[in-house]
């Protein structure tokens, strides 16, 4: 039952049953705890990661179905070298408790990759699966717009 995964550019050999969701492989096996567990039923988006650049709910992807390279929040940027979108998040002081924010940022990063200059309606569409119980939505929206502007400049 050994499965080979590429996560944040690094290769990992995982010995867990095929049906274990990617979320729990990342958190409990690899030790990448930036990706969060919120609901386990695709209803909150806290577990969002990228597979081949596409935003997916890692709680819904069994280990054996991981079809490409995985990027988690840790792979997007680090405290010393944040991605542009993370800088925008800090600039707008978005996080409150912060628990949903890894998922929000991964979802927003995928949106910006596809739609570099999203309208408010496009943000609504892309982000409505990501719950924030602290209610940080206005700042998330502002940070997405700022990130879009910064990405265009660079």
């Amino acid at each position, binding site marked *: 039952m050994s499965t080979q995964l590429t996560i944040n550019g690094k290769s990992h050999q995982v010995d867990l049953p095929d049906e274990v969701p990617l979320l729990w492989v990342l958190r*409990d096996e690899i030790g990448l705890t930036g990706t969060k567990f*919120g609901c386990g039923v695709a209803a909150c988006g806290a577990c969002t990661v990228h597979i081949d650049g596409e935003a997916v709910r890692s709680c819904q992807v069994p280990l054996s179905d991981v079809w490409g390279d995985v990027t988690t929040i840790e792979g997007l940027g680090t405290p010393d070298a944040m991605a542009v979108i993370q800088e925008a998040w800090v600039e707008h002081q*978005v996080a409150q408790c912060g628990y949903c924010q890894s998922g929000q940022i991964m979802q927003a990063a995928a949106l910006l990759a596809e739609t570099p200059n999203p309208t408010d309606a496009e943000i609504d569409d892309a982000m409505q699966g990501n719950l924030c119980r602290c209610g940080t939505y206005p700042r998330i929206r502002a940070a997405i717009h700022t990130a879009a502007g910064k990405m265009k400049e660079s």
Partner: protein
Amino acid sequence: MASLGKIARRTFLIGSAAIVGGVAFGAYYVTRPAPNPLKPAEGEAALNPFVLIDQQGVTLFAPRAEMGQGVRTTWAALIAEELDVDPDAVRILHGPAATAYYNTALVGDALPGKGYDKSDFMHGVAETLGVFGKVMGMQVTGGSTSMIDGFERMRAAGASARETLKEAAAQRLGVDRQSLRTANGKVMAPDGAEIAYGDLAVAAAALDPIETELRPATEWRLLGKSQPRVDMVGKTTGTAEFGIDVRLDGMKFASVRMSPRHGGMIRFDASQATGMPGVEKVIDLGTGVAVVANNTWIAMQALDAIDVEWDEAPYPPETDQIFAEIASAFDSGPNSTMRDDGDATKTPEGATELRAEYRVPYLAHATMEPMNATALYSGTRLDIWSGNQAPVFTARHCADAVGLEVEAVDVHTTYLGGGFGRRGEVDFAVLAARVAREMPDTPVQVTWSREEDMQHDFYRPAAIGRFRGAVQDGKAVLLDGDIAAQSCSQQVMGRWLGAPAVGPDKITVDGAFNAPYAIPNFRIRGYLAELAVPVGFWRSVGPSVNGFLLDSFVDEMAHAAGRDPLDFRLQMARAEWEPAAACLETVRDMSGWTGKTPDGVGRGVGFTYSFGTPVAQVIEVVDEDGTIRINKAWIACDLGIVLDRSIVEAQMIGGMNYGLSAACYGEITFSDGEVEQLNFPDYDAIRMHTAPVTEVAILENKAYISGAGEPGTPPSMPALGNALFDLTGTRARDLPLNKHFDLLI
């Protein structure tokens, strides 16, 4: 020890102590029966400082739970303001569980009294009770109290540390202390010589701490300005450590399944579970089961494979039976009459009378991070890692659960993935301790599934409000309210202290009896329902109930009086308390309130006073082809003194969205004794596309500082209900509103 009385109304003293290579400063209470915690007696280790200076630099302690309200940032800024250090250049730690970190303001706020009219006498009583609270070890984060509690004490701790370091420098340089200045963690002499605090720490430890006046607000560098949150980069890069992220060598992953009826377990059969790959142990917890595995998901799957027979619930099994029980509380005498102005027994001659009954449901906290804790038990010691709002209670209850003395327990408090009151409970830590006891020397993380979390909450109590009002000549002349609910404070105190609180229960009527409205005949009575449904503190507590009950009824009164609802409230507020009126005026002007809206648009106003903070909100809803969307919101609040505008704004918007989530979709119901809602699809919340565009005004008119974490929640619910009435003409007298309206989801 410096002399007392330099700062008026001061109830604390500054203590200092030598530590290895440096000095520690703390603030502790004069009336504390225990000695200076910084100078423990022989054999005691009770060093609980707020400031620690050594060769490594300056460390500040913010022993309050960081759950997104920015408390670490602002608490550190209070100390740094006086200490003259740059918040970027210091370490900020939560510190250990310690009674020296207890919260006076929380207990003070549990007293009867409207709050906004608190006299010096009441403050005195609050302090006395504060001592009581400390004796019981209430290091609790809640009640929007952190800034009230820390505002003077932390600045005084910082100021005393600064002056004592200056004195050490003065002695070394042979100059007068007054000639020295401080900045960026250094003492500076007139001749340009500089000495870093770290180099003075050992010498400072030999001096008595010096007490000094606090700087006036006009000299503040940090306070009053928005500081970058100290936790922001960590929370943006996935590197901030929440309870669920704790990783220890050799750690196992576990989950629990407890009775969905909050009662006992008759029997269970785990034969299907024990053989599952990855499962290491099944533990009988008496009222439920735990599975320990090599992966959390595997533990949860194994729990699902266990066949369990649960005993009955200790409360009526169906929601309507529970509400009947709550209603029957009206038949017994009132537990409290906290407001009784004029004579509310009669309706004034010639006035128009109206009556209405309102209901609100039980609510779950649904913190984004499900309940969890990590424990390591060695037979003689227990370590607990968790995001929690009450570390001292956590330590005590975990010690009891595994049969150790409390001194043998260390609680490590991480970031909280949402608290909202839920993490002031100790149940999740106690379960982890009990599981760990069965796995000696092995760290175990116990994570609940979302379903387990939602079914095993301490819910916001359901309530029924019965109101009788009268209006005459466009004015309110009578408001008589009876409110029945379970007492969450009695239950919480019972769980924390083993002895339920008794006497008049303020929380059941909080937000109603102390509404800052002048009405000649105004009475509010509370009735307590005796029920065993688990209830607890939910963001804004009593006012989360009474804001909707009272302010919706006030709206009905305004319409019955033929008055503009905002103006009607404004008139009553002006005659009672000017800061309340100013919030209403501000929100009126911000929103361009005219009392009229175009077709397809509705507006409502809501006003509440909670935790010392008056908040007015206007909410606008729009009808879009039959579906109603919350379009805009305006908030005006008065904090007295604003320490960090960005944080307050975030708390006001977040608090409002938390209230709107409950108002639109939130309801916990029971069937066969079990909570029917299991996960977010059954208990949804405001999301990106349903959150209103919001503007916030933060006023500083009132005389005292108050908190921001909760007061944004209560007015949102009536404001939305009132807006929906304005749009549709339908008055919803119960929540959630999606039962009455086609709201956007």
